[in-house]
């Protein structure tokens, strides 16, 4: 082959558009350690289960420490967090109670989800044995095993959940589509029309009036926005804006459970407005752990120093606290967080 032809061919190859099925050689092979770090999913047939074991008795304190604050001591749930237990026999009733025991088809789903996403805001903080133990405890809460039960990789797939057989593949194509593929009536389709339900009677729409007023007062608001803002009170000189920004960022670790600022309410954890310098365990309407109540009775005050020690290692500082948080290890991050919290007063 002549040099000219060779060059022409090479050019032709370079200019050939990529065909979908042709490999482009982009990316690199994933290392086994990398796949192991991310591939933690588990299937009903047991594929993906790690080595390990845990029993109901071990699971109970783990559940109380890590899960009960949202899901309740017996899986009955606090507020609108998911209910985990009970509900058997309710699927055909109004307002069915869909729990692990009454609805979920596979136990592997519990293990996978707890391992990948729980505790809420602290994913992958539990050891594999701890996930086995909590899963065993959830089976116990649903009356599916006795209190001496131990769950392990070996016996995992022997456990079947009661509702497994009641799921079936989407059948809309055969059940609904034939009936709904039609030429509908266009004229004189009904003799009379009556209103049978009204949203205004139920009245659960949020901020509806506010939104309407807002629209009406658009112009007025714009004037307010343009008016000079009242001078802000002198900021604490020792705290830089950078530090407060860092504190706000650090607060992300807390905000799933704790609220601050105007209109903040107790959630999974107590509202934190005014917490710095305040006696511990005193937020109205919040149900504290026995351990925290005891400390409050003993006169614990959340000075920056005490808060710092608590946030660094909650369970080391206060054994029995309900705060399901592993601790903020970085000193600067904690200092910034406490400075940020100090900007919220009790009012």
């Amino acid at each position: 082959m002549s040099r000219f032809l060779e060059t022409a061919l090479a050019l032709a190859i370079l200019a050939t558009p990529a065909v979908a099925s042709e490999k482009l050689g982009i990316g690199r092979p994933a290392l086994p350690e990398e796949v192991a770090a991310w591939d933690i999913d588990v299937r009903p047939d047991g594929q993906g289960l790690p080595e390990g074991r845990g029993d109901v008795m071990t699971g109970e304190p783990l559940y109380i420490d890590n899960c009960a604050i949202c899901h309740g001591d017996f899986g009955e749930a606090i507020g609108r967090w998911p209910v985990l237990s009970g509900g058997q026999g309710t699927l055909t009733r109004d307002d069915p109670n869909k729990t692990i025991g009454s609805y979920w088809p596979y136990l592997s789903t519990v293990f996978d989800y707890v391992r990948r996403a729980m505790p809420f805001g602290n994913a992958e903080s539990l050891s594999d044995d701890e996930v086995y133990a909590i899963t065993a405890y959830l089976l116990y809460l649903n009356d599916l095993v006795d209190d001496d039960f131990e769950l392990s990789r070996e016996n995992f797939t022997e456990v079947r959940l009661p509702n497994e057989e009641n799921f079936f593949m989407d059948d809309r194509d055969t059940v609904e589509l034939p009936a709904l593929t039609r030429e509908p009536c266009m004229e004189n389709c009904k003799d009379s029309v009556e209103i049978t339900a009204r949203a205004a009677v139920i009245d659960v729409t949020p901020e509806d009036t506010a939104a309407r007023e807002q629209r009406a007062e658009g112009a007025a608001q714009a004037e307010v926005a343009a008016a000079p803002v009242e001078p802000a009170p002198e900021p604490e000189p020792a705290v830089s804006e950078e530090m407060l920004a860092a504190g706000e960022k650090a607060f992300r670790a807390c905000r799933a459970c704790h609220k601050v600022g105007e209109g903040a309410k107790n959630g999974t954890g107590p509202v934190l407005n005014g917490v710095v310098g305040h006696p511990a365990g005193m937020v109205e309407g919040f149900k504290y752990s026995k351990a925290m109540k005891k400390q409050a009775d003993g006169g614990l005050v959340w000075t920056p120093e005490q808060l710092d020690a608590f946030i660094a290692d909650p369970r080391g500082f206060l054994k029995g606290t309900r705060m399901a948080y592993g601790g903020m290890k970085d000193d600067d991050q904690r200092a910034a967080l406490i400075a940020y919290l100090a900007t919220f007063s009790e009012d």
Partner: protein
Amino acid sequence: MTKNGKELEMTDRNGASRRDFLRAGLAGGAAALATGTVARAAGPDPAITEQQPWRTMLGEGVDARPYGAPSQYEAHVVRRNVEWLTADPISSVNFTPLHELEGIITPNGLCFERHHGGIAEIDPAKHRLMINGLVDTPLVFTMADLMRFPRENRVYFLECAANSGMEWRGAQLNGCQYTHGMIHNLVYTGIPLKYLLDEAGVRTNGKWILPEGGDAAGMTRSIPIEKAMEDCLVAFKMNGEALRPEQGYPLRLVVPGWEGNMWVKWLRRIEVGDEPWHHREETSKYTDLLAGGKARRFTWVMDAKSVITNPSPQAPITHGRGPAVLSGVAWSGRGTIPRVDVTIDGGKNWYQARMDGPSFDKSMHRFYFEFDWDGSPLLLQSRAHDSTGYVQPTKDELRAFRGYESIYHNNGIQTWYVNEKGEAENVEVS
């Protein structure tokens, strides 16, 4: 209900032609004169006779708004949350203000949000996409790697399977933002997922994929390989700019026509397997419990659906009787929307709405119905027809199939009651 109002000639039963539209424009003018709704000025309008500040003062320069924002007079046009729906705002949802939007494209800042572990703020330099499982070579891509694959631009709606889920038992929320606002419609730029899977080489026993998010919830869903190869995208742009953090920056999966929960945000891994995984979001959630206690699973496709966005409870008629514009949106996970019917009398008589704007597969469509309101109460409904011939059912038709407890996939026909004052309310009718 007696006579509710008379439709203009423009929207005849066979659909409006351009000539019809022009004719109706004339007819509309005549109707307005006849019913006396043309305003007569009581005196000179100060908006005209007085100088406005934006006329007498110079405005801000080009450096004032390096990333633009809407006018201050549009501050009420925002996503809104329904506080009582969820335990807290981290694992929660807010709603697109459909009543304030026109056309078919949702602005990026108004696209509803649904997170299960809050918004992940990912540094793209530290983001990786891994493909593993039943492939010849498990691969890792950086964002820079992905930019070297051929990319495509496509318009798709994303609807949460729970959109209208609060309405199964009856009319509950007053506003299409709340009843239908778990939807947005965007131009995505992305890499066909097939290219990435081919790069890793899917083995013959690879029948399912498991996309996984890199956020605090580690969202996962099982998707059959046929869908993955057919039209899924790994998207990095929305409406031309980078995905917003709340929409999955820097990468999200696009699963056209299928329920929004499957469009995994903050996409970091795709595993190929021979069986589905039956994870939490496809067992405990996103399965449809029917009246007899059995539940449908893998209900992926979004059925054809429509809603009138104006008038609606958050967007009442404020101009009184005379020419009025009804505006709405329709979509289907099975194709396009060639036709929407509209009624103003609760379903006694229907008229074909005027479809307007571009029509893309599995995208939102816009429809209009111009009518002459005589000031009497209205019962407004819209009914979508998709390109397969499927026609949007009434809520009672759906309940006959599914009961009241299935939460997801409520595509029943919505009714707005408009009173003499033009105020609208969410109702159901016989």
